């Protein structure tokens, strides 16, 4: 399934946002999604809804984090 993750085309087997989150952040070895957030097709999806949010071909996903800023 083709997705657009943070603006980049991605081939993914993830069925829902929990799986995509694990796939995308594996190399970051995070303890928890604290400080992070996810949007699907331009709308926030809260963490407690990730499991039930299934992904479809062509979905646009944004994975963001809070970082240093002014």
């Amino acid at each position: 399934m083709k997705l657009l993750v943070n603006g980049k085309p991605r081939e993914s087997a993830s069925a829902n946002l929990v799986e995509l989150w694990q796939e995308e952040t594996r190399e970051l070895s995070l303890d928890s999604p604290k400080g992070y957030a996810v949007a699907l097709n331009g709308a926030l999806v809260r963490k407690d809804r990730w499991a039930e949010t299934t992904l479809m071909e062509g979905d646009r996903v944004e994975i963001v984090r809070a970082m240093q800023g002014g």
Partner: protein
Amino acid sequence: MKADMNPSDSFIIAGVTLGSRLFLGTAGYPNQRILVDAVEASGAEVVTMSIRRISLDRRGSDTVNLLKGRRFLPNTAGCETARDAVLTAELAREALDTNWIKVEVIGDRETLYPDVTELLDATRQLVDAGFVVLPYCNDDPIVCQRLADLGAAAVMPMGSLIGSGMGVANPANLERICRRSSVPVIVDAGIGTASDATIAMELGASAVLLNTAVAKSNDPVLMAGSMRHAVVAGRLAFRAGRIPRRGRAEPSSPQLGLVGS
């Protein structure tokens, strides 16, 4: 606000009493240790954060953990439309578990000047969505008034261009904004050194938000301490009330009983 109406001179945003009138940005410090030490030296309770796409090639610093215990004020820096600012605010609320948001909608990347139309739209939408909205705006009394009318918890007019270090470019405007505003005025952007922060406070600002002046100084921790004092000094001077400016000398020592002649 008259000093005698508020003898403790408390500073309140959306029902929260803040012990410091300095808001500090967290970007651009030489390293994490200096950032943490500078925040500590500044005495700031509120620190600003940005929201950005994760990058998989580098983990980046965990600023959220480094600065836990401070009140986070996430921003929508870099957004050019109300729609992007609203989504960024929603993501920030989820990521940082706060409904405070510094709304910044810029008109172009050269001046980083606020786009007033989009800013008013974003402010209205975010107030409706239950956010405590602190908009970064022009030093324009009418724009500030419109934002307050829409329900902004404070207004944050620019001292001068973001990152310019030019200080308070239009003191007359800023003084007028502070005098008329029904919500706290936080001067945001343009502060270059301690005296700039003091001037903003002397003009009646409730607080100052700055980042580059500290982060890019030769010694950020020292400058952070300097800003802490500068803001307090300016506030005390504002409450005390300065003397009028005069065009001629006025002796301060008694004129009678002079020795000689």
